[in-house]
């Protein structure tokens, strides 16, 4: 079992919304990312999403695109990303880490090798943006073989007919994309999100984290009232790029507090 289940179980028994924080691995270098990961966990992030950079991130907006380019220009490789997870585990044993990226770097590494090395490094799960259920057999069985969670995305376009298929082999939690669009754009209407979260929760029996477009503590509070966790990515990445680690962590702290005290 991964660290995800106990983390969400604890949140549930406290009746608190969780805070999931995203950071791009290697943006702009590994040491900065490690500082961010440690700081995010210390500021109250319940789960870390560690972005794996890719040259062609088709579901990401400009902020995360640019972060990926910075990471790649700094020489970040998938091996380097896994090394970061390992270093993070030297100080933080309990905070779950989910790797989020696109299929080709995982495929190039070899799904089996990737799953083995990710598990050994101390990762808990993987989100692969461009592998829908129709194409997931190989990656999923590799991850399952190593006891890693395969976290799935559900979208506003995922209708009731399709939803069971989407959540069928998910574990850990389901990531609900709050709006049609790329990361960093606006987020959907709260009422719609509340209904969607209920739908996804019922279909999956899993906690539902809501992301895409959450940028402020106010918005994190609104989402935290209806979702099991709030995911913030672009706002943190942006703060890091423009104002540095301290400011980014300051923002993350206020987002964590907002999510935790939403209810």
């Amino acid at each position, binding site marked *: 079992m991964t660290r995800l289940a106990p983390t969400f179980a604890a949140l549930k028994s406290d009746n608190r919304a969780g805070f999931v924080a995203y950071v791009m691995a290697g943006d702009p270098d590994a040491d900065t990312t490690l500082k961010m990961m440690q700081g995010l966990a210390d500021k109250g992030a319940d789960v870390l999403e560690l972005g794996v950079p*890719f*040259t*062609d*991130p*088709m*579901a990401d*907006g*400009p902020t995360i*695109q640019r972060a990926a*380019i910075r990471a*790649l220009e700094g020489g970040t*490789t*998938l*091996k380097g990303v896994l090394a970061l997870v390992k270093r993070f585990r030297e100080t933080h044993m309990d905070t779950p880490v989910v790797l989020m990226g*696109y*299929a*080709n*770097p*995982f*495929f*190039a*590494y070899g799904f089996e090798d990737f799953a083995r090395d990710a598990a050994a490094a101390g990762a808990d799960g993987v989100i692969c*943006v*461009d*592998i*829908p259920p*129709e*194409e997931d057999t190989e990656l999923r069985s590799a991850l399952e073989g190593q006891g890693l969670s395969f976290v*799935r*995305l*559900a*979208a*506003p*376009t*995922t*209708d009731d007919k*399709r939803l069971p298929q*989407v959540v069928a082999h998910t574990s850990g939690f389901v990531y609900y*994309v709050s709006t*049609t*669009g*790329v990361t960093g*754009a606006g987020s959907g209407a709260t009422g719609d999100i509340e209904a969607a979260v209920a739908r996804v929760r019922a279909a999956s029996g899993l906690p539902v984290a809501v992301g895409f477009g959450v940028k402020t503590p106010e918005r994190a509070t609104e989402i935290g009232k209806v979702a099991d966790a709030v995911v913030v990515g672009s706002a943190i990445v942006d703060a890091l790029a423009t104002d540095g680690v301290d400011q980014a962590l300051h923002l993350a702290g206020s987002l964590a507090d907002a999510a935790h005290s939403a209810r």
Partner: protein
Amino acid sequence: MTQPNAFSQQPDAEGRFGQFGGRYVAETLMPNILALEEAYEHYKNDPDFIAEFEEFSRDFVGRPSPLYFAERLTEEFGGAKIWFKRDELNHTGAHKINNCLGQVLLAKRMGKTRIIAETGAGQHGVATATVAARFGLPCEVFMGATDVKRQKPNVFRMNLLGAKIHSVTSGRGTLKDAMNEALRDWVTYPDETFYVIGTVAGPHPYPAMVRDFQSVIGREAREQMLERIGRLPDAAVACIGGGSNAMGLFHPFLEDEDVRLIGVEAAGKGLDTPDHAASLNGGRPGILHGNKTYLLQDEDGQITEGHSISAGLDYPGIGPEHAFLHDVGRAEYRSATDAEALEMFQLCSKKEGIIPALEPAHALARVRDLAKELGKDGVILMNMCGRGDKDVFSVAEALGVEL
């Protein structure tokens, strides 16, 4: 099942050509992709849809395109007889419009109210804008900022046709970035948008659908060869960017196992340099833009930029059906360099009175070898998939001529 059927009956229900193809897209798009597949499966057999496609192919595009005996090049190369399928005579000057017509007609029937497309050199963008204008649908074209600068005449053409151009600055501002941006737009406006992909790539059903719309090239050519010389060619040759004109030429010949199918990739400055766009000859399997296929990439699975003197060929991937035909050996894939294409561009202009696009000029370089290989009894069919008007500026520059 017999072997020939195994070649022509692809893809399977999951959109797979052997191990290639598939549907690697974000969940937001999956329902759209499935709806598109359902609509296409329905309309491709609908007599009204087929009749409308044929009517506009005839009256608007100018089909059928002629089959032409390239007598002077045959003489020049001194071997097999060379025939051109003249798809450069189509409206807008290339094969691209065959596919745009099919997809826009489908968009209309699906009730979509907005057309988007990616373009590299601007040929697919112009063809899409042209058909969208004819059917009164608003059209937005994503084009890399680098290409917008390089291809000003086509940008102006698209503007004249009423299309809105988005200059894409992400990545390196070329074709693959334009495709990423078009996918991002589609993710954002999935309900009203129809994404007209310009080649046999992307998630299922695009590779099969684009191939079907382009197969008019091979069907006509096959019939015309039988009519004119009473036999099929020994080889059918086409250039490959994403592979749509080649797939359109090849597909009706897949079961004719005596007909060699030869695709010609862009070798740029040479396959031994990083500056080429030969995905099959210089890449390896990977996943990009919705499908599994051969890609130009580094060891870590990061996509590398293709290079070719021909802006229509510098895509870092290739349609999954070509990846399949390559691996099973039904088609052969060769390459031609920038320098060879430039040479053929000039030679074809002087000898045949046809200024070819730089893309088919690549194919012609391998036709030259093949003509010798096959000898005087041989017959070669080459798809002249585009005319060179669009290339005169870049060719002049490459030759050091100031216009």
